[in-house]
């Protein structure tokens, strides 16, 4: 539904703005590889897609490699351990995000050739030690009843930094 209504200044009554809303309903259709990936999450598995002819494993999986444009094959397990390639500690409440502070990490799962985003839990970083997260080992930890959604897992460090 798209709506437009005129607005008036509360004091003077002058017309000085128009309010509008723009809703475009979207139904995003996941790729075949992603559907299979979400199925794997329900089984507490992390899966990646191997790119034909290159040996490269992509997480999250895609039906084709965005870099080489080659198709990908049947999904293969990766992780659940991985290495943190970079991170940030979010201190602002962004739309749909969790309450801050929360640590967002990009983790290269063991066996994968890409890094994937996720939240790091269970670690209290001391100020001044933040950068020790880069290169740290971690593993994916699942909720008790995964729904087949990227929010089914988070990361925890294998050892404290």
């Amino acid at each position: 539904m798209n709506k437009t209504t005129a607005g008036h200044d509360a004091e003077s009554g002058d017309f000085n703005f128009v309010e509008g809303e723009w809703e475009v309903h979207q139904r995003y259709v996941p790729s075949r590889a992603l559907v299979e990936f979400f199925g794997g999450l329900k089984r507490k598995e992390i899966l990646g897609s191997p790119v034909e002819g290159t040996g490269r494993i992509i997480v999250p999986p895609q039906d084709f490699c965005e870099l080489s444009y080659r198709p990908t094959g049947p999904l293969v397990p990766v992780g659940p351990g991985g290495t943190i390639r970079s991170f940030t500690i979010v201190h602002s409440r962004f739309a749909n995000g969790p309450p801050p502070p929360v640590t967002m990490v990009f983790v290269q799962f063991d066996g994968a050739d890409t890094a994937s985003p996720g939240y790091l839990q269970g670690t209290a970083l001391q100020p001044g030690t933040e950068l020790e997260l880069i290169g740290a080992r971690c593993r994916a930890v699942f909720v008790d009843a995964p729904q087949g959604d990227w929010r089914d897992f988070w990361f925890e460090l294998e050892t404290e930094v």
Partner: protein
Amino acid sequence: MKGEVAILGAAARVGASVAADLESEVRSVVLDSLASSKLDLDDIDAVVTVASDTLDGVMVPIRAEVAGAFGKMPLNIPSSAGHALAAAVVLLESGQARHVLLAGWGAASKLAHHDSRSIQADPFHDRPAGAVPAQVAALQASELLDEFPDLPPHGITFADGAVALVLGSSEGHDAAVRIADAGTSSRGYYPEDDKVDPLRWVNEAMAKWRQQPAKPQVAVSGPGRTAEARAATAFTDATPPGPALLPSGSEAWFGPATALFQAFQLHEQLSRTGGEGVLIDMAGPMGQHVTCVRLAGGAA
């Protein structure tokens, strides 16, 4: 660039499968167009895309990898297929690229359920009056039919589609369909001169051509069947009448990229028969952003 710009390969899909698996369908037409051009993706140095963020729900220039754009020189022109095709031509003629992949797509069948294009009108005067492209197009058709009652009634069918063209120099490709000329013409949301006859705009665009065609095959894409037929009278009213119109954009409209399908059809036709072709792309609620492209060549 030596020679003229030519279409070296082309592929298209129109139908529900495009909405069901957009990325795969775009990739399929890209690969098929490359195969028909006998080029590899490595030979492509620029990718021009035409698609709508609103239809996709994802920002198109950041998803151009679906069209094989990773590592290439990108150019995203969501305003119309005609603008994008003309842009591809000048990229080649200026030497910014040697081979261009032009890809366009859209899953527009959803507009039949809710036409989100109402947001195109200005929010101060037009939108409060209920202006939406569908109504604006209908008003235009109504005026045209008043003056030219033999035109077909207005109508447009929303669809889903994906098209890819590979463009490069005609040198070494004697049988290739060449893009000989391109011209544009435009008006505001409501034409400033209150004249809604698209034939006027088409003639302005064609006046920019270096040469006028004789008896071309004609393909038109516009806001509806009435406006398209009126635009095509630039050629079909000739005595004797020119070749029949190829199926028009309003029969399967999938967003700003629609006219690429008409370009594809012209390419297929001219590749078989040779001769000349004209693509008329009229984008916008009344088709007021016009691009006219003259094609020539193909099999003798």
